[in-house]
């Protein structure tokens, strides 16, 4: 049983390349996670993982329009739909980064166009402050994107996703330098 497990682990290490990860608290020596873990071999082309928080009325509809217009864009984005950018808690962004997103996009209605009249104004102010905090605590601003995409801007949505994907692909995986990343047991 144990032997089998060992063999399986050994094989996976051989297949994926060997790397030792030290938990970031290891520095203080409080806990040494010295176990060797498998790390997925980096694929030839890095496919960034982008989490997008969008409002239902503008950007989600804009993405719909990109679809009905058959505009092709990179398949790297995963949309989480909220009623309004006003609903987007900074915790969402942190959680996405914690879970290993390479970039996060927040997008909603243009100023003045909010379905709820002012949710996007609230959001805008929140982001202005929160992004400073993220930036100051070491999250690269090339990982956080904010945009206004209206229901009519299918092309803008497609372009945006393509641009973000290209930018983030160029910037490389965020895994190593992401300060919010969960590194407990990976």
């Amino acid at each position, binding site marked *: 049983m144990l032997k089998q497990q060992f063999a399986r682990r050994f094989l996976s290490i051989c297949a994926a390349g060997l790397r030792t990860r030290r*938990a*970031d*608290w290891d*520095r*203080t020596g409080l*806990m040494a996670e010295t176990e060797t873990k498998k790390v997925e071999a980096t694929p030839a082309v890095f496919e960034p993982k982008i989490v997008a928080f969008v409002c239902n009325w503008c950007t989600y509809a804009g993405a719909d329009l990109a679809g009905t217009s058959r505009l092709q864009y990179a398949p790297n984005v995963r949309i989480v739909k909220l009623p309004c950018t006003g609903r987007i808690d*900074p*915790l969402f962004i*942190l*959680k996405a980064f*914690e879970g290993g997103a390479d970039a996060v996009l927040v997008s909603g209605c243009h*100023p*003045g166009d909010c379905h709820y009249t*002012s949710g996007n*104004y*609230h959001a*805008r*102010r*929140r*982001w*202005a*402050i*929160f*992004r*400073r*905090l*993220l*930036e*100051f*605590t*070491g*999250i*690269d*601003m090339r990982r956080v*994107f*904010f*945009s*206004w995409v209206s229901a009519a801007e299918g092309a803008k949505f497609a372009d*945006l996703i393509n641009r973000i994907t290209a930018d983030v692909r160029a910037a490389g995986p965020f895994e190593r*330098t*992401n*300060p*919010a*990343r*969960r*590194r*407990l047991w990976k």
Partner: protein
Amino acid sequence: MEMIDALRADAAKVLADGRAKVVIGYQARGDHRAPLFVTTADRAASLVYDDACKQNLAVYLRKPEVKLLGKAAVVASPAAMRSLVLLMSESQLTGDDALVLAVGVGEYHGVLELAQVAPLLKEKYAALAPSPELLREIEKLAAKTPEERAAFWAKQFAKCTRCYACRAACPGCYCTRCIVEKNVPQWISTAAAGHGNYAWNVIRAFHLAGRCTGCGACEAACPQGIPLMLLNVLLGQEVEKEFETKAGYDPEAKPVIGSWNPEDEEDFIK
């Protein structure tokens, strides 16, 4: 009369004439300063006040155990007075909830009603600003690369034990259930480790954006010496610059996060 004598005399007086049931001030314990709850006029003489008084006593006004003692008169520095105004603007304190023994910079302003605090601040302490050293420190850090900043904070946050002394010491952190204590869903890991510590420290600072009155009690409270004021002041400066408001001067102020202006900055939104 020396400032401290005047303070002691006022404390004794408000207790003697029943305007307050307890005076919350400082006492000396060797080099340490600890809060002192004076309930009888004769003990007012034990009150001290000096630069070593780092705690923001406004924090006690919302403690149920302290509230049970009756109306309090609280010894407050200008920063602590700003906390009182913040608490008023957030409906946590009203008109006659407390009296203030207002200790200014180099002078003592006597016993104030809560309503008198904001006018005093506006008149005398409108220009309260973070120390130049702190601002330089922030600038220095801001000039580094994201990786360097991440490394700096990783080292600092690694020390965090999640004792929440920062939260406990802050008059603005008055939630009875902090976000970190909400477990359905558990947004912020309670483990004193990488991601949990990052999320906790970042969200703590964010929740004080536009609300931090710069008293420094959180940083003074942190047993691990994490430079929390770097974060608080960074956001305070940002809010002041972008939204032209400073916490703790206007009891009628709308929350910075919770209000908006059509002209708010948005050059970061593409």
